[in-house]
Structures are given as C-alpha cells and as structure tokens.
C-alpha cells in the first residue's frame, strides 16, 4: 500500500472519531427537541456544568468556596478528600437530575404552550445563568479532568501498521488517539442503549408519544411534567458524557460551552428530530472537515476546519432544509 493511501485512511478514521465527539453534543439537542420542540441553547453549558461538577466532586472542592470566603472571611477551598471516580460520576448524575427537576419546575412549567421562540429565549437565559452559576460554584480556573481514561496515541497501532507502506516509502505508522477510540465506543453504547430504551420500554414509548402529540399523550395518562424531567435528565446525562470526553481531551474550561456551536451544523445535516441523524451528521462533518483540510486545505492556505462545517450546513439549508433524516414537513391545504 502506498503511504498516501494509508494517510488518507488515517485522516478518515480521525475524522470519524472527531465526528463522534460532535455527535455526542448534538444528541443532547435532539433528545430535548424531539420531546418538547425546544431548541435547548443551554446544551453546551450543561456539558460544561456537568464536567465542572464532576471535577469539583472528585477533587473534594468546597462548592461556592469563593463566595463563602468573601462573606465570612474564611479560607476554605477543599474538603481534603478525593471521591472515587465512579461515585463522583453517580453523584454528578444526581446533580443533573436535580437540575432537570428545577428546570421543569421553574422554567418549562410556566411556559407551557408558548411559542418555540419564547422557549428558545428561556434556554438562552438558562445558558448564561448556568455559566455564571457554575463559575460561582466551582471557580473559573481551568481544571484537568482525570477519570482514568487512556490518552495519547496508540503505540500498538502505530507499530502494527508500521510495515504496511510499500518498501522505500517513509511511513511511521498510523496515529490514532486512544481517548478518541474510547469516546467512539462510549458513544456507540450510549446510542444503542438510548434507542433500545425508547423503542422497547413503557417510558420510552411514553417519550415518543409525547414527542408526537401532547394532548393525546395526556389523554392516555402520561404526565408531561414527568416526561420532561426524564428527558432533561437524559439530556443532562448525555451532556455529562460529552463533558467528560471533551474535558478529558482539552481540559475543563469555560470555552467548553462553545462546543455547542459545533453541534449546530451537525443538527442541520442530520435533522433536529433524528437520533441516528445526529450520529451520521456528526460523522459526515468530522470526516468531511478532516478530508477537506487534508486534500484541499494546503491549496487555499489551511485552517479550513474552522469554517468547513458551517459551509456544508449552509448548503444543506439551501437544498435539503429538513436535513438528511429529519421529518419532511408536509402541510395539507
């Protein structure tokens, strides 16, 4: 095999794995949009908040320590203990469920039957509130997230593929990030279990029912409020997974909330209402931007990854506004 061919494969594989990371964020959007028709602007901040909380709990930080110190003149920062990773994750899930209950109780409940744009505005408010709240609660310094995930390139793969290139060509083996591979596995498990849950369980059926028709769902005894809490909890859980993966990759910092922006083109490709769409949209964008950068980037000065996804999304908006898998809106006249 020629080295060029192997490089291309490497680029595609890396693109797929980058795409998985985008999909993880997009997934949270789709879940909430399907169930309640709300475009949740706060999804990215939820991922940040979940990651902050996880690090905070894990390292035994005192929540609101800056606030407490400022008011009482004390100097507390740490409890002085370390919480085991699994326990910390479980506690963080608990925090996200409480968060879902609060969102339902104090925001959604008061905005039932309002225009989508109003609900959208409410989630923008929520996003900024959470950003500030996360700041006060856990501090604004950049934290490292260590949940025991492997990192760095896979040496095994590099050595294994070293001899693949044709003789006489320079080739140093394939470079794949271990963290990306783990993220891909986690994402696959997550999507499969979410799909099974929504297809084959009573609650899953209720979720789909609410997504389809609120009135009819009420009439068969489904409580919208309960379903919304469940949906926001699941979205919180997905945000936590995305937060862990992105946090482990590039540190837990406030720019983490901007990954939500990367999810937008994914959603435009995949459609806002389709879970498989979010995954495949993410993969297309991941592969597309890496391949474009590899093949065409050098000709036009590089740094195409910053804009490629958005241009692709723009083209989709023009030619196929419902996305690849979104429901086509047909209105009877």
């Amino acid at each position: 095999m020629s080295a060029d061919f192997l490089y291309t494969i490497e680029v595609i594989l890396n693109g797929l794995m980058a795409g998985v990371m985008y999909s993880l964020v997009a997934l949270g959007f789709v879940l909430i949009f399907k169930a309640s028709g709300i475009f949740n602007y706060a999804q990215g901040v939820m991922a940040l908040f979940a990651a902050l909380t996880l690090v905070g709990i894990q390292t035994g930080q005192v929540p609101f320590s800056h606030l407490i110190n400022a008011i009482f003149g004390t100097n507390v920062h740490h409890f002085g203990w370390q919480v085991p990773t699994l326990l910390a994750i479980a506690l963080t899930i608990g925090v996200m469920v409480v968060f879902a209950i609060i969102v339902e109780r104090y925001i959604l409940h008061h905005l039932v039957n309002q225009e989508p744009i109003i609900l959208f505005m409410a989630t923008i408010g929520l996003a900024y509130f959470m950003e500030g709240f996360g700041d006060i609660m856990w501090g604004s310094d950049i934290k490292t997230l260590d949940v025991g995930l492997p990192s760095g390139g896979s040496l095994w793969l590099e050595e294994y593929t070293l001899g693949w290139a044709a003789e006489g060509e320079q080739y140093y083996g394939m470079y794949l990030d271990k963290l990306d591979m783990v993220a891909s596995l986690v994402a696959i498990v997550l999507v499969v279990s979410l799909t099974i849950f929504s297809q084959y369980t009573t609650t899953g059926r209720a979720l789909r029912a609410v997504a389809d028709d609120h009135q009819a769902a009420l009439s068969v005894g489904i409580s919208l409020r309960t379903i919304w809490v469940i949906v926001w909890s699941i979205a919180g859980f997905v945000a936590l997974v995305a937060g862990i993966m992105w946090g482990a990759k590039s540190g837990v910092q406030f720019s983490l909330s901007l990954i939500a922006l990367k999810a937008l083109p994914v959603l435009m490709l995949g459609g806002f209402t389709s879970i498989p769409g979010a995954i495949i949209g993410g993969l297309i964008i991941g592969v597309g931007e890496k391949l474009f950068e590899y093949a065409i980037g050098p000709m036009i000065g590089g740094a195409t990854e910053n804009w490629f996804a958005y241009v692709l999304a723009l083209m989709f908006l023009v030619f196929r506004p419902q996305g690849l898998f979104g429901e086509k809106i047909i209105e009877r006249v």
Partner: protein
Amino acid sequence: MSEPLQKMEAASKLLELKHIDLSFGGVKAISNISFDVLEGEVRAIIGPNGAGKSSLLNVINGFYHPQQGEIWFDGKQRHSMKPYQIAYQGISRTFQNIALFKGMSVLDNIMTGRFTHMHKNMLWQALWKGPAEQEEIENREFVEHIIDFLEIQAIRKTPVGRLPYGLQKRVELGRALAAQPKMLLLDEPMAGMNVEEKEDMCRFILDVNDTFGTTIVLIEHDMGVVMDIADRVVVLDYGRKIGDGTPDVVRNDQTVIDAYLGVSH
C-alpha cells in the same frame, strides 16, 4: 316501558355534572349545564356547531377547568385534576381531529393506551429483563385482544400516519379501549366517514358497550346514528342545555327542533 328506560332505573350514576360554567376570557362556552351519565349507558351529546359540545367533553376529560360547578365521577367529587390523572381514574377519550402518535405503529399506539396499567419503574425498564418484561408481555396480550376485537390484525405493524382516515379512527378507539376505561368519551367518532365505515363504527361502539359494559359518552352530528345507538341524549345550543331525554323525547321537543332548524333567538 321501553328497554333503555329499564336499563336506566337499575343503574347508578357514573358521572354527574352540576351547574357547570366555563368561559374563555369574556366568551361563555358553557353556562349552567347539569346532566348525568348512568353506568353502562350510551349517552349522546348533540347540538349545532359551536354549541359547546367539545368544550363539555374537555371539561369531563380535565383539559378545561370550569369556573363554577361540581363534577362527580364514580361517587367522588372531583377537585381540579390534571388530564393525565383523570386517565388514571378510568376515563379515556378519542378526539375530533384524530390525535394518534403518527410515527408509531398501530401496535405501539394501542400499547400507549395501557400506560395507566404499567407500573414498573424506570430502573426495571432500563434492565428490561424481569418484571418489566413480564408486565410488557401481559399488557401486550390484552392489546392483541383489542386488535382482534377491532379487526385490525392486518395493519398491526403499519405506522398510523399511513392509514386511511376510517382506520385511524378505529385505531384511536383501540387506544382508548386499551385502558379498560370505566367511561369512554368519543368526540365525533363518525365525522368524515362513508356509510360503510359509519356502520362499522356503530357496530364497534355497541359491541364495546355490550361486551365490556363500558359507559359511553359521544358527540355526533349524524342524527340517524344518534337516534339508533344512544340510550339518552343531551341537546346543547349556545352553551346551554335545551333538551335531555331518550331519543324519542328529544326528537319531538319543540326547542330542539327550533335550534336545529335555526329559529332566531
């Protein structure tokens, strides 16, 4: 004495509305309406367009909360309740404009009707094996029974969005029946159907009433149908009750005739 009247005397009141008032802002939809529904009867609500029939159904169903009046169901007075809680009390309904879960199969749609009978919590469901699976199988059996009853075996797996109108109405009836309700509310079950579909639907409604003993409250425009299948009829006009009694009594009532023929008020 005619047969429906005998049925009435033996039965007790399943639902009683007392002096119900409902308005939206300044518009009065229902004023001072009282009537009762006996256990096991087929009760029709009729009236010209805009008479407040659907509003009344929504009051019974808990979608609307009347400003005044009392609602008694199954011997207990109802205090303001959410629609989903009313489903747990044993009231199911269908809608005037079909409200099915369009993306889901016929089977799944009717399964959602079993929601009030499935109690295993989410953790069991997430595990899937064990109690949750057992519960699913039991309820599935009941749903298959309903599917047989409504003669829709052939379309069990079809997404309902693809079905013709008449069949969708039948699936919606199936979903309501799956809850094994004490009382079934049907909002224009025969609207937009052809003669054959209407006959089928009439047969199903009477069969439901006979075999399951379900009390039925229905809104219908087709007078012939109403006179055929209803035990008693309530007539509404401009949000007021203008007639109440057996089909024969109502048919010959002068106020009712005026309302339908459009005598000026």
